[in-house]
């Protein structure tokens, strides 16, 4: 436990002086802001058109504008994460290996599991700090909506984004442990995430075939859709928790193999 905290502290203090962390967080917030604005503008237009149609035909329309905005926003946030998370994780192990500080960690009286968890929790913390400012968007949305949208959707949306990000961080840290170059690690992570994204398009094309069904289950983005609609389905929870555990387990094995080969 003390070992986890020691590794965690060290990671956090490095994040604070790392330009990459600032760039990643800045890029995330900028993109999230731009997309939020775009979604709002689109919703606005849609609402106006709907209002005009209602005037013409007199049919009362039932559209949940704030709900649509939130769904769009959380969906887009998930996509942005695919691009930002590789920046956050690429150095996690690769940079330690290149500098030889992996040797310091692995000859300190901390277990490999403590190293893996300390690093993972530090990345999760940075991720939460990164998500925090998006609360501003939520405040704007809640203040502009009448009646207020249900809290449930926002909370489950954030839960979905968090689980997606946590899974991507676990996978990204594992990929970082495979190489000594953080650039290589970053490219690999990005490619893997891109594959996961493309998988989503394959599903749309062939949802009926067996391959489509498999792809649908594997797709990391697809499992977030329910969350953005305010539905917390246990199968999605199981999926993300499994992804996180798998990533951490593989990282642990990777550290072990560093010892058996050499770092």
């Amino acid at each position, binding site marked *: 436990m003390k070992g986890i905290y020691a590794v965690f502290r060290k990671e956090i203090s*490095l994040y604070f002086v790392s330009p990459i962390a600032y760039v990643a967080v800045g890029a995330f917030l900028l993109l999230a802001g731009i997309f939020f604005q775009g979604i709002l503008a689109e919703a606005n237009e849609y609402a106006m058109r709907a209002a005009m149609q209602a005037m013409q035909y007199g049919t009362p329309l039932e559209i949940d504008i704030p709900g649509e905005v939130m769904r769009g926003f959380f969906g887009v946030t998930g996509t942005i994460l695919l691009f930002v998370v590789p920046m956050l994780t690429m150095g996690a192990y690769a940079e330690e290996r290149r500098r*030889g500080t992996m040797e310091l960690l*692995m000859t300190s009286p*901390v277990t490999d599991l403590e190293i893996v968890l300390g690093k993972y929790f530090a990345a999760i913390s940075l991720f939460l700090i990164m998500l925090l400012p998006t609360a501003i968007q939520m405040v704007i949305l809640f203040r502009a909506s009448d009646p207020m949208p249900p809290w449930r959707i926002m909370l489950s949306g954030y839960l979905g984004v968090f689980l997606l990000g946590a899974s991507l961080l676990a996978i990204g840290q594992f990929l970082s442990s495979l190489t000594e170059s953080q650039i290589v690690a970053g490219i690999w992570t990005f490619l893997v995430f891109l594959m996961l994204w493309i998988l989503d398009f394959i599903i749309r094309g062939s949802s009926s075939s067996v391959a489509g069904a498999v792809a649908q289950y594997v797709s990391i983005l697809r499992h977030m859709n329910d969350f953005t609609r305010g539905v917390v389905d246990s199968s999605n929870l199981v999926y993300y928790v499994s992804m996180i555990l798998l990533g951490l387990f593989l990282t642990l094995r990777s550290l072990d193999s560093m010892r*058996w080969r050499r770092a």
Partner: protein
Amino acid sequence: MIEVEGLTKQYGAVRAVDEISFRVDKGEILGFLGPNGAGKTTTMRILTGFLPATSGTARVAGFDVFEKSLEVRRRIGYLPENPPIYPELSVQGYLDAVARLKQVPSDRRKARVDAAMEMARISDKRDELIKHLSRGYKQRVGLAQALVHDPEVIILDEPTVGLDPKQIIEVRHLIKGLAGNHTIILSTHILPEVSMTCDRVVIIHQGRIVANRPVNAGQDPGGEIVIVEIKPGSGGAPAAKALVERLAGVKRVEMQAADGNGRVQARIQCEPGRDLRSRIAAEVVGHGHELFELRASRVSLEEIFLQVTTQEAPDAAPAETAGTGAAT
């Protein structure tokens, strides 16, 4: 304090460390001497719990390095060949982080960080970022890192490499000052380093120990090997050789002609513990040979080392590949 028995490390087909055994007593400084790629780094990495051995055992402070790795790691300070530093951190921030990793209790942490900076003489740079420091200072930060948890055993891989002569002297002083309370292993490929800092030397070559003996630098080397240069009188060199060989305690005499001035050089090996220097001088002069030089040889540490390093030349290629596998 450190007991190594039959330690072997195999990397695929390459045997980086081959059945080595040695021990280091408490308070001793052991020098690990050998050409690059001899297996020094690999052995040190096994001792620090970084790498597991293929076979054999190693114990530090009574704990097996594999079975009780965490106990061993708590007691070892380790400076790898490249100091394991985070360049973006300040010296103090870095040492504080290392102290946490090494599980220094929080009430002692500040004092230990200060003490380590004091010992490595970097207190004046405590607030500077490590990336702004010179190579020598970075090395000292690495040294402070190895001392911060006040370990019983300190393992230093090439601690003076890349330093300027003044810094080398400082680091040697520091290491000598640590002995007594700490047990130290340091590796080097520089012979004088061993004779200046270590109590005992293990020469390692191609994964095997080729010598393990005490070093007594500066002291009288004793008369175990005596080098004599004479100009033979009547009877010539053979007579002189026979004369010395007759002496009690002389084990072997090797003669070779010195360059062209009629002198001969003899290398006389005597039984350990017998100092025959004055006897030899008296015999040689008494029988009409002219004595030009007589000195005790520093028990052939140099010779062994030279032998080892020159042997490497013919089979340099395989040794080289073994080396990169072991040291990097």
